[in-house]
């Protein structure tokens, strides 16, 4: 199947190709409803998502069962992360001072542009043109690859999923499983068309081909860019977590390592790592521990046979201090980017990540995208939820995600961002329901008017509902009407 025929690729205007032919996100309001409809019609996508996410949840649930203390672990981690965020200045200073003392160079970036400038500047300063990159949602957030390619440097994505997305010119659709929206046939097509390898649908063969092809990129790279899962304040160290080995290679082979880190990703110290690491790997991939955990303390030391000569840490704000200002939404800064909320969300599981039109999709994105990027652009996202609460239930750091969505909806009403018709309807609703006699009086009137909106199937016609479901007519008498009639007052509840 030709990838470009996938409607999520050519159709929806939430992604488009810029003049360099690179995919970027658009600035207009994301129309989630329309995107969701497109996703629902894409049978391939539905099948891929269902298969992939059912498996993810099964693995995670089975592993969680083996931890009798799981709830205590979550509570402790929630308190720990809240404590860090509430004392963020202290921990960031500590982290920065200790890291600097160890020889790690800290670069502070107030926003995405600055972060990209600093990274590009560092690469230029060291005459770097060949860069390898391991997975980092933050680099997606600041749109680093596009910025660097305009400067003539194209970082090569080395995480298998990100690599496949890169060569297909697609954006990742999940924060830890970037190509969960693709089937093996689609991956096989992408790789054979773009890399000139033999068409095969066997994941082992495809992976082996990627290993072979990317090895030379690693060996010839002049700099490696990685994300950071945690920064340890007391030790001034970085922690990078992965399964494939591409982060270790990006960090240790080239002479320069640049780590990108959100300012909120600090932990007090190494002693807190076991808990957060376990919560992260169990929640993200249903693994007891990920394959590789690298704790980076400094550039290569005297006497060590290898390792980078210079290590830079780019600390990125890009709107996080604004979130900090708004106490209501501070809990979202506790997030450790595990993706468990995406996996469990009934809506995400049906529409996939691209429908959210944001770097951060799913329940995490429904809260983070409006508050971090733009309330207007992402105005639809807080409503992309049934409020079932499954996200809150699985969050390893107990962020009350669905409650934050309710807060965002209330904010929309406050800022008059809702349709007038809806505002009027709810005003009327509030008026009527606070006046019992009026409410009861209107009951009879509405029942007289009911025949006007009868639908063919015998029920009522309700816009938005009746296209897909039957809606029952009102009961001939409401319960209260029956109760208040004499028969009921005598406690004769004849059934």
């Amino acid at each position, binding site marked *: 199947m030709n990838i470009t025929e996938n409607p999520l690729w050519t159709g929806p205007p939430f992604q488009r190709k810029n003049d360099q032919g690179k995919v970027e996100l658009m600035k207009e309001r994301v129309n*989630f409803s329309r995107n969701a409809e497109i996703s629902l019609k894409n049978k391939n996508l539905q099948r891929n998502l269902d298969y992939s996410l059912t498996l993810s949840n099964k693995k995670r649930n089975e592993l969680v069962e083996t931890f009798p203390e799981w709830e205590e672990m979550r509570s402790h981690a929630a308190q720990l992360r809240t404590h860090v965020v509430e004392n963020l200045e202290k921990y960031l200073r500590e982290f920065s001072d200790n890291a600097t003392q160890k020889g790690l160079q800290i670069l502070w970036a107030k926003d995405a542009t600055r972060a990209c400038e600093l990274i590009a500047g560092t690469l230029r300063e060291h005459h770097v043109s060949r860069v390898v990159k391991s997975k980092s949602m933050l680099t997606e957030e600041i749109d680093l690859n596009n910025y660097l390619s305009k400067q003539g440097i194209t970082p090569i994505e080395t995480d298998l999923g990100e690599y496949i997305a890169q060569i297909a010119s697609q954006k990742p659709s999940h924060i830890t499983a970037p190509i969960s929206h693709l089937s093996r046939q689609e991956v096989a097509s992408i790789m054979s068309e773009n890399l000139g390898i033999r068409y095969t649908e066997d994941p082992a063969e495809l992976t082996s081909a990627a290993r072979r092809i990317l090895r030379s990129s690693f060996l010839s790279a002049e700099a490696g860019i990685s994300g950071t899962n945690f920064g340890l304040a007391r030790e001034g160290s970085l922690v990078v977590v992965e399964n494939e080995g591409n982060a270790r290679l990006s960090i240790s082979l080239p002479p320069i390592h640049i780590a990108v880190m959100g300012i909120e990703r600090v932990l007090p110290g190494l002693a807190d790592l076991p808990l957060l690491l376990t919560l992260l790997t169990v929640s993200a991939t249903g693994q007891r521990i990920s394959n590789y955990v690298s704790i980076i303390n400094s550039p290569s030391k005297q006497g060590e046979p290898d390792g980078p000569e210079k290590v830079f840490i780019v600390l990125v704000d890009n709107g996080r201090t604004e979130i900090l200002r708004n106490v209501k939404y501070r809990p979202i800064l506790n997030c450790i980017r595990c993706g468990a909320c995406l996996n469990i969300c*009934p809506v995400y599981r049906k529409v996939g990540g691209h429908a959210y039109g944001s770097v951060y999709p799913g329940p995490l994105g429904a809260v983070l995208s409006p508050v971090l990027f733009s309330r207007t652009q992402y105005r639809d996202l807080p*409503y992309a939820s049934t409020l*079932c*609460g499954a996200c809150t239930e699985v969050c390893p750091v107990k962020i009350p995600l669905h409650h934050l969505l309710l807060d965002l909806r209330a904010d929309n009403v406050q800022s008059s961002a809702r349709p007038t018709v809806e505002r009027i309807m709810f005003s009327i609703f509030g008026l009527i329901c606070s006046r019992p006699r009026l409410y009861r009086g209107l009951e009879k009137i509405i029942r007289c008017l009911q025949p006007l909106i009868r639908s063919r199937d015998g029920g009522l016609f309700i816009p938005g509902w009746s296209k*897909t479901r*039957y809606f029952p007519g009102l009961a001939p008498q409401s319960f209260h009407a029956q*109760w208040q009639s004499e028969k009921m007052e005598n406690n004769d509840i004849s059934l």
Partner: protein
Amino acid sequence: MKAAAKISLFVPCLVDQFYPDIAKHVMAVLSSLGYSVEVPREQTCCGQPAFNAGYRTEASRLARHFIATFNRAECIVAPSGSCVSMVKNHYQKLDLARQDVEQWGKIRSTIHEFSDFLIKHHAESSMKGQFPFRVYYHASCHSLRELGIRNAGFKLLSRFEGIELIDATPALESCCGFGGIFSLHHPLLAEQLGIDKIRSVEFSPSTFLVVNDAGCLLHMTGVIKHLQSKIIPLHLASILALAMGLERNEYYGKPTLDRATLSAKE
């Protein structure tokens, strides 16, 4: 609880307007267990639809009204996890006067979701009956997650002779797709989630789909009829009334059970 024995019933708006039989069934069950049930006349709505849509001013109004209506109740029972969750967990976010807040504090501890109330106060022996059918029980997301009521419905239903209950698994705990205004904003998504749920009910296979919230019931019934599925959707209160022999109405009980027997044979 026996000592107090007077219950104030809160009737959720969907039950009041669309499914009044559910309220009658709740009353029948509670009466048969020896309680006297009163229905405060002034009650209207807990305010959840407004709150969920972000209209906190309107929701506050309704919350104040609810508190005023129920502030003297000894024990409030509502056949809806979402209404009880609204009162217990979200009223604190609303604009309430100080005395409202105090009264709310008391209401919080006296309001119960119907299945939760029954399981906490009634030993197995007092609720007996027959229900020889296969039942798929779907606990509403609010009762599961906001109120932590995981097994109440199961335990209640398992008391009945002959009943075959489909075991609880994580898949069973997934949302039916109603989500209040969600199903109006995103009808196709809501429909798809509903279809998934109904298909898994059919696959189990079951004759009845029992839910403990009228919102889920509204949505699931809508999907069932649209799919022309043979599944019979019922509220938990109704199935309890049927099983305990409290529902004798020839327009309700007998046809329902006849239909069930027929589809079980197929």
